[in-house]
């Protein structure tokens, strides 16, 4: 008998409005969907449809007006701001459209930063960062400052940083937005490998329909609503395998 699996992300009747002056502008108008473990989800939609707001809400950065966000059964907004911050650090890895760096830190220190946030011992954090940099062939750049690298390199580096805490979920907000086609494909390939080999759930937001082919699940959004959800394939991951990945302690090597 297989026990019932908890969805990795569960969105229930999610609504979010912003106020401009006294005028209420609804951005998310009631979303319901689930994401299972190991999926590669691509959220597609035109600019301004609420994709990024949805992403930030899942991350615990944007308090919803109504509805719930559950990460493996845990209600995100039942925690306070600092609680959400440490939850985010453990469960999510973020890749943004523009890489955001702490400019006074060099490449390896930036990659190790999320571990420092959780108070990991300095040597441990640095050796983990070194491993990841080696895997992504960044080892010779570790003493550089991130701003000295090219845009593509910086995006790859932010994947390194996203992976350092060994998160369940990689969140990517238009990660290829500033890259040329070749570099973009390269980055997408990395994300796909992470998804397929290391069993990370990937949630990616884009307006470029070209990336549909990487997805196992496609979510089309329009004007704050889900227009269509397409399950292209089902990731074949046993519940034992899922447990193994989920139970990995923060910062344990995976890649």
């Amino acid at each position: 008998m297989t026990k019932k699996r908890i969805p990795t992300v569960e969105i229930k009747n999610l609504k979010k409005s912003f106020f401009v002056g006294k005028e209420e502008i609804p951005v998310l108008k009631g979303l319901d969907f689930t994401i299972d473990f190991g999926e590669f989800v691509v959220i597609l939609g035109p600019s301004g449809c609420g994709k990024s707001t949805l992403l930030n809400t899942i991350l615990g950065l944007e308090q919803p007006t109504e509805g719930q966000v559950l990460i493996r059964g845990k209600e995100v907004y039942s925690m306070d701001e600092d609680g959400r911050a440490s939850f985010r650090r453990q469960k999510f890895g973020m890749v943004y459209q523009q890489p955001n760096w702490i400019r006074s830190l060099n490449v390896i220190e930036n990659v190790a930063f999320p571990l420092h946030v959780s108070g990991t011992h300095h040597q441990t954090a640095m050796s983990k960062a070194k491993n990841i940099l080696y895997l992504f062939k960044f080892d010779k750049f570790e003493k550089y400052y991130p701003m000295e690298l090219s845009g593509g390199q910086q995006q790859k580096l932010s994947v390194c940083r996203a992976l350092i805490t060994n998160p369940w979920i990689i969140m990517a907000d238009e990660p290829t937005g500033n890259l040329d086609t070749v570099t973009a494909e390269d980055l997408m390939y990395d994300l796909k490998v992470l998804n397929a080999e290391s069993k990370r759930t990937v949630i990616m937001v884009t307006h470029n329909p070209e990336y549909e082919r990487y997805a196992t699940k496609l979510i089309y959004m329009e004007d704050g609503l889900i227009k269509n959800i397409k399950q292209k394939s089902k990731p074949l991951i046993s519940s034992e395998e899922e447990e193994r990945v989920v139970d990995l302690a923060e910062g344990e090597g995976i890649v």
Partner: protein
Amino acid sequence: MKFRFIIKLAFKNLKRYKLRTFLTAGGVAISIGFISFLTALGYGLQKVSTDQIANMEALQILDVDTGKSKIVAVNEEAVRNISNLFGVEKVYPMVSVAGDLSLQGSKVDGIVYGKSQGILEIEKPNVIVGKSFTSDSAEEVLVNIAAAKKLGVANYADLVGRDLTLNMVLRPELIGGDQKVSKRETRKYRVAGILEEGNSPYVYLPLNNFKALGVTSYSGAKVKTTSRENVDKIKVLIEHMGFKVSSIKDTIDQVNQFFGVFRMVLTGFGVIAVIVSCIGMFNTLTISLIEKTREIGIMKSLGTTKKDIKRIFISEALLIGMVGGVTGIAVSMILGEIFNASIYALANSTGNTPVKIFIFPPELLIVALVLSVLISFLTGAYPSRRASRISALNALRYE
């Protein structure tokens, strides 16, 4: 976040803007240095002047006399009463009378002091030739240089061993009884030594000689207390007996009070400098906050807590403040010592007593250091609070 990492991050942030950090820390250094330099000058000058007034033992002494009162008298009974007060170590009565001194025809007006050996041990007059009394009843006198000169003795060493005739006027209150008129007494005493002090002629006579002349009351007394702390209390008690009491401590208290005000004025100038440097530091921290808005956003989205963000900013403020403060204190001490050394050299070459006009007591250094930490917290509080409250999303959108 580990404390070490926070400090490291704050340090790296400051290192990135070397010039700005240098200028801000320089401002703090100047203000803290200024304050410590001026206060040290205040301390130094105060020490120089109080040192010249008295040694520590003199601070324990009270001078008692009858003042203008005709009712009370410093007699044996009064001496006994004062001696019995708690905290009084010893009472030394003394007598002073007007009179003239004559030596082989030359005559000079002067004052004759009746002093006991005990009192001389406290006063420590400078006997340059000869020696002090052998006992309280010895028929000897100590003559000061001024008197010797007026008596026409060119080489005052010659005076020692010779007989001096004293003609003393004993006032009625000294001899007691119903006498209303002064009594004159003329006696010869051997000169035992020469005193250095004094511009007007006087001699010291062992106290018991006055008793032999029929003196029953004293002109006054010196009261030695067991400790400096008791002086004020005992002073009040003796004043209640009807006597007039004064002490060197009063003078020193006044001098201290003056320098306390003086130091406050100097410190006031320093405070103005500190306020200016505070504004500079606040400015730097606020600008650094605005510049780092995006970084705060990324730190927060990577899971940094509000508390840690706050700590990073406070650490930056503390680093600037501490570096500035320590530099300022060090520079002010070096400058002060240079001044002291040059005054020392100058005094030695001109034959004066060298004095230290800059003194850096440990409490001054501690206060200056605490002040620089305080400045850091004060100026860092607002920017760090604001930084911790920045919304991660707004910060990430910030250009």
